[in-house]
């Protein structure tokens, strides 16, 4: 069963450069959350802070009652065993083959026999579609493959919290869809708490239970998927619908002139909210909510056409739910 991560008033700067300020959110246990934000807003820094690799200037990160920020080094290593982390570049050990990379956590932290380890490693490698590449060195494979190998390594210890930095950058659209399906199925299986950083709008719209948006040195919004997808908040709306109209410019913020020039323009209507991606065998996940539940409970009228299909006009999403909806 996954554990909750409770983040309070987190602030981080490098020297005089403030990365983000006063970030407060709770990652609900066993749910999938996605963190979005323009490039360079400190999403990777946020993930590293959550595992205690970087010390925030202020704030607390509570996991199982322990505050990661003030924890002693030795205890920190214990808490980290709850985590599986996929770094942005895979962070594989360059001197080891993919097999040894994936086997590494098992050899370090379990007393399993080599044949047990072999079974687990081969299973995880197969899960991420890397069967047959076991003997390759990280330097000999493509970026997308490194990413998937890193994911396999993050999965072997059956973590309770999975932090995943851009699983889909460097992956082709088909692999991205497979990986997204994999996350949903994994979540159903192991009930871990997921935090996925992504730039892929499709992933953000269809995979998570919760969405967060980091923008302009703060957390613009964090909440249930339907809340953000039906939000009229300019930044959220612009980002989740990949538009140029809105406060986000090419270099972070637009200046007043640019905003004034846009003021007369009419915003395109919010696109319909797609159905959430389901597990591949159709069994519901523990964290799953009925489509439209949040909207009904909070008296929000979702954009017309919502919850009718799993792709809502964007290609590349599992179709199993569509059939269910049309039936």
């Amino acid at each position, binding site marked *: 069963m996954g554990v909750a991560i409770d983040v309070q008033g987190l602030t981080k700067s490098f*020297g005089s450069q403030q990365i983000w300020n006063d970030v407060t959110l709770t990652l609900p246990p066993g749910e999938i959350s996605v963190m979005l934000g323009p490039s360079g807003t400190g999403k990777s820094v946020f993930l590293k802070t959550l595992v205690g690799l970087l010390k925030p200037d202020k704030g607390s990160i509570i996991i199982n009652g322990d505050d990661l920020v003030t924890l002693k080094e030795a205890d920190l*290593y*214990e808490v980290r065993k709850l985590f599986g982390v996929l770094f942005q*570049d895979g962070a594989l050990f*360059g001197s080891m083959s993919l097999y040894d990379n994936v086997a590494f*956590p098992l050899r*370090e*932290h379990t007393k399993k026999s080599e044949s047990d380890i072999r079974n687990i490693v081969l299973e995880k490698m197969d899960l991420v579609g890397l069967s047959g590449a076991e003997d390759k060195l990280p330097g000999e494979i493509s970026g997308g493959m490194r990413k998937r190998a*890193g994911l396999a390594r993050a999965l072997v210890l059956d973590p309770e919290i999975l932090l995943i930095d851009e699983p889909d950058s460097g992956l082709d659209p088909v692999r991205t869809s497979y990986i997204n399906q994999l996350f949903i199925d994994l979540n159903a299986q192991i009930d871990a708490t997921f935090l996925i950083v992504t730039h892929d709008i499709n992933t953000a719209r269809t995979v998570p239970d919760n969405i967060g948006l980091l923008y302009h040195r703060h957390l613009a919004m964090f909440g249930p998927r339907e809340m953000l997808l039906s939000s009229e908040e300019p930044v959220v709306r612009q980002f989740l619908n990949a538009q140029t109209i809105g406060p986000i410019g090419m270099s972070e913020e637009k200046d007043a002139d640019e905003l004034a020039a846009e003021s007369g323009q009419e915003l395109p209507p919010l696109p319909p909210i797609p159905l959430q991606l389901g597990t591949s065998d159709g069994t519901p996940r523990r964290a799953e909510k009925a489509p439209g539940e949040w909207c009904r409970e909070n008296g929000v009228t979702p954009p017309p056409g919502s919850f009718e299909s799993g792709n809502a006009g964007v290609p590349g999403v599992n179709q199993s739910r569509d059939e269910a909806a049309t039936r």
Partner: protein
Amino acid sequence: MNLLTGPLKQAGAFFAMALDVLRALPKRPFQTKEFIQQCWFIASVTIVPTALVSIPFGAVIALQLGTLTRQLGAQSFTGAASVLAVVREASPIVTALLIAGAGGSAICADLGSRKIREELDAMEVLGISPIQRLVVPRVLAAMLVAVLLNGLVSVVGVAGGYFFNVVIQGGTPGAYLASFTALAQLADLWTSEIKALLFGAVAALVASYKGLTAGGGPKGVGDAVNQSVVITFMFLFVINFVVSAIYFQVVPQKV
């Protein structure tokens, strides 16, 4: 960063890391495989250059001392003086230069590139301390190899001195060998090895510190290697002076 607090912070962080290494020493499981690999690696990058440097070093000392003793009319002490010079000073210094220049730079580049590839972060997240896993075996390996190298340099240096004095300068072999123990004593050899041990430890610690704190991409690693070599040299010459000074206070000299 401030001109004054910057270096102080660095020094503080360095000593904190050195302390962490000390604390991680007794932690099990000891990384035997990594230790042996590192010993082999450091030895392989240092042995040949060390031998090549120590021959001319021994020769130059023999040349200087041969001339000096003749000027002072103490030819019979040529052997004694050159053994002292080689074992007490020349050989630890040569060892230091090579351990820092060849071994330390390799350690720093290796750890630094792992750092920027986030391998070290990944290791920490997997619940493994890079200090225990990577730094401790490297420090121990550098210490062991430094001691062995120092022995090698002493032998090659003394042999080079003998060859130069006897064969080239026409000294008498018997007098050269007989005077060996006139001034030198076993304590000289111990001091020399202790120096080498310290040099190995410091070179590996500085290299590891600089590697672990490398940042800013491949260029950052290059800078870190460069700084680690320069800083180690400065440290080593200071340590050499301090140990020599203590030696003369503690060990009674033959007269």
